[in-house]
């Protein structure tokens, strides 16, 4: 007796505030997955991106705005492998949206479709901020966009069968463009092959693998544990014996450790966009890697 009234009320409310909507409401945790969802979904999806390129995706506050966006989502596209463990579970449980609860088909995690590197042999918090499933920062290797894009097209098609053809066709187009871009980037990146580098946080393993960089050292003693000045002094000693060509860090990270060590060791400290919006130049998926390479190549000169 009460239920239909409430339902009608809620429906009227939704119609009033939501207006005409795309077929799929996508809640993307990071800008790169938001961009990929737009590549695959086109105008059939409406994408909300929960973080900006200058935010650390490990540490996001479970803000009211995120909860209200998750409430109406049909699918979440979030990296997974525990990257968002400090905030996303709180948002999902408060969103009261069964479509995106753990185990639902509306949960799409790109790390499920890529072979993860740096899987820890043992799990203990004394190791710092380690991720049980492996290193989650897969977007730094653009080749990973292919399996993720394919799986995303399949998942969108499953969730929205009416537009299945659109998603698959858009994936095929994307695949063609992306393979051309990969060819171009790999040619451009030839001078970077095999160079020794230092990283501020261990979030570049996939970039290192793609470009064949040789990681000599990280500027944090353990993942997610900020370096003390004593530790940085030890790093400088190592860099005297084993010089590196550059120290790379993500746009969202504090610049002090890499500029400090870079200044002392006479090595360029290079800020990379890490994701779309990390730098002004990294405007979309393509320019993300254009800018990443151009910044590294510039530092090499």
């Amino acid at each position, binding site marked *: 007796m009460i239920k239909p009234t409430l339902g009608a009320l809620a429906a009227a409310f939704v119609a009033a505030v939501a207006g005409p909507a795309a077929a799929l409401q996508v809640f993307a945790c990071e800008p790169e997955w938001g961009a990929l969802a737009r590549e695959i979904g086109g105008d059939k999806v409406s994408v909300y991106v929960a973080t900006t390129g200058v935010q650390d995706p490990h540490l996001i506050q479970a803000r009211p*705005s995120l909860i209200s966006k998750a409430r109406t989502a049909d699918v979440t596209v979030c990296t997974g492998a525990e990257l968002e463990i400090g905030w996303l579970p709180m948002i999902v449980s408060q969103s009261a949206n069964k479509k995106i609860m753990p185990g639902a088909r509306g949960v799409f995690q790109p790390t499920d479709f890529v072979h993860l590197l740096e899987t820890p042999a043992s799990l203990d918090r004394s190791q710092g901020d380690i991720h049980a499933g492996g290193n989650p920062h897969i977007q730094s290797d653009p080749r990973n966009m292919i399996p993720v894009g394919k799986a995303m097209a399949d998942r969108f098609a499953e969730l929205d069968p009416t537009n299945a053809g659109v998603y698959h066709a858009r994936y095929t187009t994307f695949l063609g463009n992306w393979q051309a871009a990969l060819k171009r980037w790999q040619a451009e990146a030839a001078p970077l092959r095999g160079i020794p580098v230092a990283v501020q946080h261990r979030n570049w393993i996939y970039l290192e693998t793609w470009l064949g960089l040789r990681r000599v050292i990280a500027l944090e003693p353990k993942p997610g*544990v900020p370096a003390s000045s004593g530790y940085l002094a030890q790093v400088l000693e190592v860099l005297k014996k084993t010089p590196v060509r550059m120290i790379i860090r993500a746009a969202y990270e504090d610049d002090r450790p890499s500029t400090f060590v870079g200044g002392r060791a006479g090595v360029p400290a290079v800020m990379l966009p890490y994701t779309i919006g990390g730098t002004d130049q990294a405007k979309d998926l393509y320019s993300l890697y254009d800018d990443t390479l151009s910044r590294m190549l510039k530092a090499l000169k």
Partner: protein
Amino acid sequence: MSVGTHAEPNEQSMTRSRPPFGIALMAAGLALYGQASAAPAKAAPADFATLQQQINALRGEYEAKISELEARLKAAEAEVAAAQQDQTLAPVPEANGEIILADTASEPAPAAVMPSQNAMNPGVSVVLNGNYVARSTDPSLARIPGFPMPDDGGPEHRGLSLGESEVTLGANVDPYLSAALTVSFDGSGSASVEEGFIQTTDLPAGLTLKAGRFYSAIGYLNERHGHNWSFIDMPLPYRAFLGGQYGDDGVQVRWLAPTPFFLEAGAEIFRGDRFPGGGADKNRAETQSVFFHTGSDINDNSSWLGALSYIHTVAHDRMTAMDTFSGDNGLGLATLVYKWAPGGNPAQRNLTLSGEYFFDRQSGDFNSLSASLNRTGWYAQGVYQFTNRWSLGLRYGALSGDRPARTLSRSALDDLGRNPRAITGLLEYDTSEFARFRVQFSHDETDLKANDELRFQYTVVYGPHGAHRY
């Protein structure tokens, strides 16, 4: 979840103080919940047709699994194809030649095979804390004139002590429910169930139901466990009006509106045995509450949360010190929270400002003498993390009591014309997001004699990584 008894039409206290909106929400929620949980029960193989249906369903599932595997295989092939496009760029083995200082390398290893007996174990997290308290007055004599408080709401003992230790066991029960149990041990070792509830995960229309023992969602801080408080203790009005926080046995329904901004409404009914209620032994739920939450982003740097809450409690011969009280208590709370972090990146610097206003109306018999009081209170606090790992906090709280009828003058209800207030400063250092060390200083003018208090506290949380509330 035998909540049926609460809906008896002749239970006047229910209908008097809880808005029909809450009842409607709860009834609708319960009805929907019944549907959701009834579905799996139908699976009993009554006849051949159902068996056939089950087989079809299984087949569908397998087909879905196989097509997913095919998709993965194709994706893997695509990845390999892309990798082979340029033969000169074969991947370099990971962690190749990296120099690790004072650290054991994380070598790639096969995923640990879990013994099947443990595979479904709930997440276990443990909170430990330790305190040192020094204060200028004797805590056993502490009181706030005009605000009688329960015996367990008093200040902590002086000296070194192990604080309240907590163990939480949480997991999904099945596709429809999750559950959590928090057992807390006080310093002397006696255990109590702090929270123990089941919660729905599969209701439609933004509804969530919760049943069991839990902290009420009124206000901003009430729902938080001690290890998530911004200061070592609760603000003055929480202590005076709720004896710390209100947690009781009951049922809660929440509804999150499908609006582009955050809007949540909820209602609760509780047994009513906790302060400011007490002595509940009737069929009805003696405590009822409603709450509304809203909030949004202001820009990339800042966001806010607002809340209005109301809780009604009934006391039957409630004892505070040597006094008894029987009657009604209505408490309203208005909440505003503001958070700031440069670029929305709280790792280095962030600020949280929050404030709540309390309005309390109490009427009944205090030591068999008629008493009617209007009391208010408020607090405002700010915590600023000025650099990675370090925070400073400042809090001010005040109460405004009432003067009861002359027959009760000089009793515990008489505020003696005073305005209790307290100011608190905090310095915090976190070794990681799982451990913190605090030093807190308070100057407290709530009692007849001012009290200065210095506290040290450590708090650690270990177990699965918990997600943080706003």
